């Protein structure tokens, strides 16, 4: 078991390098695709900027603060999508029967499914998020300490892991309902759209739901509140933003159970 886990990173790396090499065969095409991916994914921020041509604050957040929320939401989803997003195609593989191939190769099916068709151009989303984040911090007056820097980096990793776990949960559900790939979009892309905005604008019930049921608020909202010294909603303590890594661990455990459960009940298509 331990040996399998230790081997996983190098196996994943080998699989994605194969796809990266193939996409680099046409460098000009790759650069264009990367660029258009950036343009397409920055649209949500353009919408926020257009909104701020009419307003000066959204739910108590200024444009720079909104930019930070947007950047952190987009970056965490972008990293999760880059590393695990391909897993949403598992239903297609189950339907066509090609999933069987993964089960007879000497690499875990999970790694093969996440690395399947690895598209480096998806780096476009985190890249534009990084640009927006630089813009946000240049306009914000954050009192930087080493602790805050660590909180930012760690919560970005934890947020990516939470989104990644949601991708895996959605994929695991496809073992039950083969054509349900789009369902997970509600929580991944929907989650990203939602966490770009201060969650309190959606009402108390929603804040409760994304804190205790689908912990999307831990992806970026609570950590950003902590960085900006803003009070947490629902009377929650301000250090709740530091709990993201813990939430990420729980989500990984759940996703791992779900994936194993799905894999166990998998029956190949027969004719």
């Amino acid at each position, binding site marked *: 078991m331990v040996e399998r886990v230790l081997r996983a990173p190098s196996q994943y790396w080998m699989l994605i390098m194969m796809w990266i090499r193939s996409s680099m065969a*046409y460098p000009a*095409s790759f650069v*264009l*695709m990367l660029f*258009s*991916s950036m*343009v*397409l994914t920055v*649209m*949500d921020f*353009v*919408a926020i900027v*257009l*909104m701020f*041509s*009419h*307003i000066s*604050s*959204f*739910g108590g957040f200024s444009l720079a603060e909104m930019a930070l929320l947007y950047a952190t939401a987009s970056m965490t989803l972008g990293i999760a999508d880059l590393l695990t997003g391909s897993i949403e195609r598992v239903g297609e593989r189950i339907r066509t029967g090609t999933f069987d191939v993964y089960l007879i190769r000497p690499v875990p099916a999970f790694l093969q499914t996440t690395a399947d068709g690895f598209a480096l151009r998806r780096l476009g989303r985190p890249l534009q998020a990084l640009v927006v984040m630089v813009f946000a911090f240049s306009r914000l007056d954050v009192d930087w300490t080493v602790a805050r820097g660590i909180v930012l980096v760690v919560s970005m990793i934890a947020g990516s892991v939470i989104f990644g776990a949601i991708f895996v949960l959605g994929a695991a559900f496809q073992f039950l*309902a*083969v*054509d*349900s*790939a*789009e*369902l997970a*979009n*509600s929580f991944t892309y*929907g989650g990203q*759209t*939602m966490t770009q*905005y201060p969650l309190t*604008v*959606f*009402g108390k019930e*929603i804040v409760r739901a994304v804190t205790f049921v689908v912990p999307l608020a831990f992806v970026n909202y609570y950590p950003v509140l902590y960085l900006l010294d803003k009070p947490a909603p629902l009377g929650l303590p301000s250090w709740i933003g530091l709990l993201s890594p813990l939430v990420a661990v729980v989500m990984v455990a759940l996703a791992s159970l779900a994936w194993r459960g799905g894999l166990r009940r998998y029956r190949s298509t027969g004719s």
Partner: protein
Amino acid sequence: MGVYWAIAVRSFRRFSTYRIATASGAFTNTVFGFILCGIYLTLWHERPGLGGYDASDALTFVWLQQGLLMPVGIWGATTTGELGERVRSGEIAVDLYRPTHLLLWWLSVDLGRAMFQLVVRGGAPLLVGAFVFDLKFPSSPLTWLAVAAGVFLAILVSFGIRYLVALSGFWITDTRGMEQLALVLSTFFSGMILPLVVFPGAIGDIARATPWAATMQVPIDIWLGRNPGGTGSALLFQLGWIVVLLLGAQLVTSVATRKVVIQGG
């Protein structure tokens, strides 16, 4: 004429077989509807009457937008996606053998798809939205008729654009760049990221003149009765783009079928 009707009916039936996919898609549209309602309620709370919309207009916009997204094919559609794939792979040769018109064949396929998705993926989110929020509905039969015409024309405009993108594969081997460009333009100018009425100044004027405005913003404004020049001019605007796009599509079809060597020799 009968043959095209038959194609459309079969396309309708084909899409009605993907039940779980349709249900999960409609669910996702509904979730996005709720998220956008939260955002727009805040926006219209900060600036009441923004862009000539009141809060109820804005909420209705959300559910119509989510409902039209798939039927109109703002982000592309399975049908024209397949057409592009057939051009790339050379399978289009089979379509050209058929004693039917290429453009009309694929238009029928697309309309069959659009009608199914309009009923289910358009209807389901709107029903949920109307149940939760106080939405606006057309009051007179004449407005309903105009809405039906506006949505139909929107699908035609969108088809015209998607068809041209698909056929670009006759000349450029890698159409992904073209598809991405179409996706960016459609997302930005259709009213998908924000209602075009909120776009400030010149950007707003430019956006409202593009064919993409005719695919989403215009039919929604017909529903809301908020077209700046009235419903009649809105329908004429859509018709104008349809004439341009379908004439272009027809021209491209005839040039492509006469001159181009199908890939594979």
